[in-house]
């Protein structure tokens, strides 16, 4: 109902040490600011009312660089969704992430918003998260006691909840090298293109002579967090892939989800279409392993 934000203390640390120190001091009363896309509207609506805002944009050690490294690639925490979407490196080697971000409609949101910010919101409808799940990404977080690497599928605890401590800051996303003959795919269902997903799904598939060597499947918006579809993966892994097996894996995925009914969709529909989307992303991924 409100239009203005409530007053808060504004901090603009220059180093990670200064930033984590400030966060330690303010505790849960503080929120970090990286782009504002999610944070500012929630503050306006009084969903949160932080006493202190720590702007991460001017920290020396933070960057927006997207680059390959010896283990694969890294995405600096300040990299915008749009820069990741347009990155030739991401398009070439991590197409599923490109496809997921491309499905987010608003250019403004993508220009301003960061992938890390999207992860930290911890919405089960995130399009970025399923893509990172199937890419087996890791998140580097820095706190007062040093840094740690968090596998993406251990990052979420529930809606709006992550394992990140109140004084930890994510500095980068790490993507492992993809083996040869790997392809990925992403798909989602929405009410209008700018809506968040009713259901989304991502898959990353590695083939060797017609046999599935490795596969990861993730589905969003069907549980409090994005889910890995391990049973569906087991159907495929080590087996020769054909349409029949893809259908079987898709059914296994649908069996594994217990979605809810809300204003966007119904539990029944989400379950039904989990199967359809998993099938479709596997088909796309398979096709792309050949490229």
């Amino acid at each position: 109902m409100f239009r203005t934000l409530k007053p808060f203390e504004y901090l603009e640390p220059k180093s990670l040490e200064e930033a984590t120190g400030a966060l330690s001091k303010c505790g849960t009363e503080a929120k970090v600011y990286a782009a504002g896309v999610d944070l500012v509207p929630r503050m306006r609506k009084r969903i949160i009312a932080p006493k202190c805002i720590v702007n991460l944009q001017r920290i020396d050690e933070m960057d927006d660089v997207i680059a390959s490294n010896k283990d694969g690639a890294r995405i600096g925490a300040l990299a915008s969704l749009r820069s990741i979407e347009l990155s030739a490196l991401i398009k070439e080697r991590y197409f599923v992430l490109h496809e997921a971000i491309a499905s987010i409609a608003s250019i403004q949101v993508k220009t301003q918003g960061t992938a890390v910010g999207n992860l930290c919101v911890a919405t089960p409808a995130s399009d970025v998260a399923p893509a990172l799940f199937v890419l087996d990404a890791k998140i580097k977080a820095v706190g007062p006691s040093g840094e740690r690497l968090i596998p993406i599928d251990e990052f979420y605890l529930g809606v709006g909840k992550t394992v990140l401590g109140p004084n930890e800051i994510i500095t980068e996303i790490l993507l492992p090298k993809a083996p040869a003959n790997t392809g990925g795919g992403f798909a989602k269902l929405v009410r209008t293109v700018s809506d968040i997903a009713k259901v989304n799904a991502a898959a990353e598939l590695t083939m060797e002579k017609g046999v599935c060597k490795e596969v990861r499947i993730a589905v969003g918006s069907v549980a409090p967090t994005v889910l890995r579809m391990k049973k569906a993966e087991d159907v495929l892994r080590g087996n020769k892939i054909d349409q029949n097996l893809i259908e079987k894996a898709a059914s296994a995925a649908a069996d594994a989800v217990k979605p809810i009914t809300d204003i966007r969709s119904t539990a029944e529909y989400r379950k039904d279409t989990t199967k359809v989307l998993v099938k479709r992303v596997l088909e796309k991924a398979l096709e792309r392993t050949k490229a």
Partner: protein
Amino acid sequence: MNKEFTAVGKRITQKDVVLKATGEAIFVPDVKLQGQLWGKILHSKYAHAKFTIDKTRALALPGVVCVITYEDTPKIPYCRSFRDMPMTASGQLQHSDEFILADKARFVGDPIAAVAAVDEKTAEAAIELLEADVKYEVLPFVIDPRDALKPGAPVIHDYSPNNNPVNSTPPPWLAIGDLEKGFAESDLVVEDNFYCSRQIQSHLETQSCCATVDSNNKITVYSPNQLAHPFRRELGKMFNHPVGKINVVTPYVGGSFGCRLSCHTEPICVMLALKTRKPVKLVNSKEEDFTTIDARTPHYLHAKLGLKKDGTLHAMELNVTTWGGGYVSRAMLAGGIMLIWGLGHYRCPNMNGSCKLAYTNTPLGGAMRGFGNPEVMWGIDQLMDRACVELGLDPVEMTLKNTKHAGETCNTGLPIESTYIDDCINEGAKAIGWKEKRGKNKGGTKTLKRGVGMSTMTHCSGAWPLLLEHSGAIIKFNEDGSANLIINPGSPGTHIYGSLSQVAAEVLGISVDDIYVVAGETEKTLFDLGSHASRSMYVTGHAVRIAAEEARKELLAYAAKMLAETPDDLDIKDGQVFVKANPGKKISVAKVSATAIYGARGDGHTISGKGCFVPHHNSPPTAAYFAEVEVDTETGVTKVLNFVSAVDCGKAINPMTVEGQCEGGVQQGLGYGLTEDYVFNPATGATATGNFTTYKIPGAPDMPLETKIIIIDKPDPKGPFGAKGVGEPGLVGIAPAIMNAIHDAVGVRVTDLPIKPEAILKALKEKASK
């Protein structure tokens, strides 16, 4: 007029569009008054509750100037949609059942207190304090109108113990024949229950107001209201204030589609200005808009059609339960008008219907573009399509059998002045490729199925004889030969100033560039009812024509003196007055006007004209809509590939404007049909879809791949230069056309709006299991 038009029919751009392109155009939220305070409203968080409010803490907050509740208001009940626009047919007035601030909360969002403070941040802080200091006594509430009408339902207004303030029946010209006999004589009877959903206008500029009271007690109100004069009258009554001391100023308006027909925050803003004697500005958040304004009135419709084997409509019955809200506002007319559109569209010898209105503990039902017509056609044209399928007839041919023609009785009870609906149907069918596509899944696959569907409608040009009609206009020549066109039809983005300038320019024989519109203040303009019911072109258009003809007469009389000719022998073209028999003998309009104004011979005279107009006729615009869709049978998702709207709006005064209206109508109709879903939380009665993140209107990529607007462009005998209304027709038949196309593609249909993929997939599953 036989001569070639010089202004009418041209694709011109309205002058003020330039100001909108540069950011100079001032909308109400952009208004800044010296020393202005900021207002803010406290809304009830319960659907039905008594309450007491402790103002102490809010008043003590530094910067807070005043806090008002029901006790501080004049306690004169009003109707936010202006009760003095009676149904002229019945004489029935809309109920005055609302106070400036509520005595009892009747929906989640009902305004129960307000503050004025030095800035917006302080006003909002005061509201947060007040919110904590309200003691509610929560009462049982009811959301659905069908529940509200059951015995024992919570009573929302004491005066209406059964929550049923009014019932309506069709007017005599639509309650005809013998229904029972009609259905008995029919070869096929089709019927169903339909839900016509609550659609939010989704104008972008949130509801805003600025109000000041000066030391002469003159109230100036900056408001986006599009019925400025009736609004002024309502304000006068609400505050027991002389209307001569009220000026309603309408700056640029960021969209309406019906929402600016009512006053929303204005009475509260004026109240704060009266209390503080300072200018007060009050701007809604979008969430406040979603939860407090009167949206398209929802209805439950039971429709039943009886048809002969050849597809001739023989009987029609419509029974409506109208979802009124906590106060009735325009919902009071909504069911009745639905019967008029529905029963009045096709030729049918046996018809009747009924409408029950219910109070509910929800935000109000109001008017949105089409007011009842998109709602009723959602039911009727689905049944028509169903009947075609069952009788093995083609919908195009069957519809042509049932359309009315000129001279037959129109929905308003008057004779149809002109209708080219058959042209709309034929041209539209050709454009969509009806014959090649209907029933053929053309271009589709096994899981992506394609189909085409259609719908039609008849609307109105103004509300005569159902509601008050009256518009006025003044033309005033300047000494450079330009003219001011002084009007106040309300202009929420419809380019009506431009179209009316074209009418004036055509009559006056000067360039549209030389017409300067003065509008937007009640104290500087003649009475104009305002913009609703697709009336401005038709009614204000005539007022402008009359004013221009009068000014033209004065101009010719003065020119005749100067040229030593008689006025009848003169004509005007391209800003020159010339002798018809001797075109070389001429004088410029500028010279005539300047000479008249600076009458050095002692005959000074401002060449001007005044026109007031009340139509005693109503030329109905008609239209046909065609959709081609692709349905994903695995997900139930519908993509509209092509959409064709063919409209008969008489002579298109500005074809670009007509296209713009109809293209925009497709967006709104597509949203109504497919994506816009207003949901209440059943446990609390609160709106669950209170902003654009949850209530989804179509964005550019959601639109049809191709949208084609066909303008039939045949003049009507009664409209100004042959024009009829076109504002509302744009969206009427979109949703049923899409639904009928979906049925053509996959053989299932749903009866509740919007058409959700969830419902389509479920229907497909059910069909497969049969």
